[in-house]
């Protein structure tokens, strides 16, 4: 996996604020985590949406 910065914002505003060309949003990760492991996908910032209620 390529290096990335991980964030888990608590609200939608913060998640939107993290948007950028190299940002990927993480829901459950069952596909994205695997793609990143295989280096088929990469992100400079990974924004985990699981804390947003």
């Amino acid at each position, binding site marked *: 996996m390529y290096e990335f910065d991980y964030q888990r914002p608590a609200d939608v505003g913060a998640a939107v604020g993290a948007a950028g060309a190299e940002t990927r949003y993480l829901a459950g990760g*069952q596909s994205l*985590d695997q793609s990143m492991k*295989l280096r088929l996908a990469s992100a400079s910032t990974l924004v985990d949406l*699981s804390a947003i209620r």
Partner: protein
Amino acid sequence: MGHTVKLTVNGKEVTVAVDPRTLLVQLIREDLHLTGTHVGCDTAQCGACTVHLDGRAVKSCSLLAVQAAGASVTTIEGLSEGGLHPMQAAFADCHALQCGYCTPGMIMSAVQLLQDNPTPTEAQIREGLEGNLCRCTGYHNIVRAIQQAAAKG
């Protein structure tokens, strides 16, 4: 580096500093030395790495450790803290393992299966185990073990 993950593993609170790339299974095996959780395929197909995350069976090779922050994780070691779990006893009784590599994941999935459906049919058991592979092809006895565990309630 720089991420501190706090989570509960088998009832104990742990705090581990991890690189964000660390997988949950790496934290469990390499930081906590709980090596009952196995890595088989490392691609989410085989289910050897199955653990319970907040009571749901998940494949810990497909989850970042940071994603599990704040959660409660149960591994195969946590199932057997008061002696063999009834599912483990049933696997032993029914000879439901050959090499044993898939067994921890099979048992974690089987426990979840009976939590969701305490009286499954054989077909439902086989469907419920579709995320777990056994290379020794020991499926028949695994299904029998789960039927026995279900019958004993």
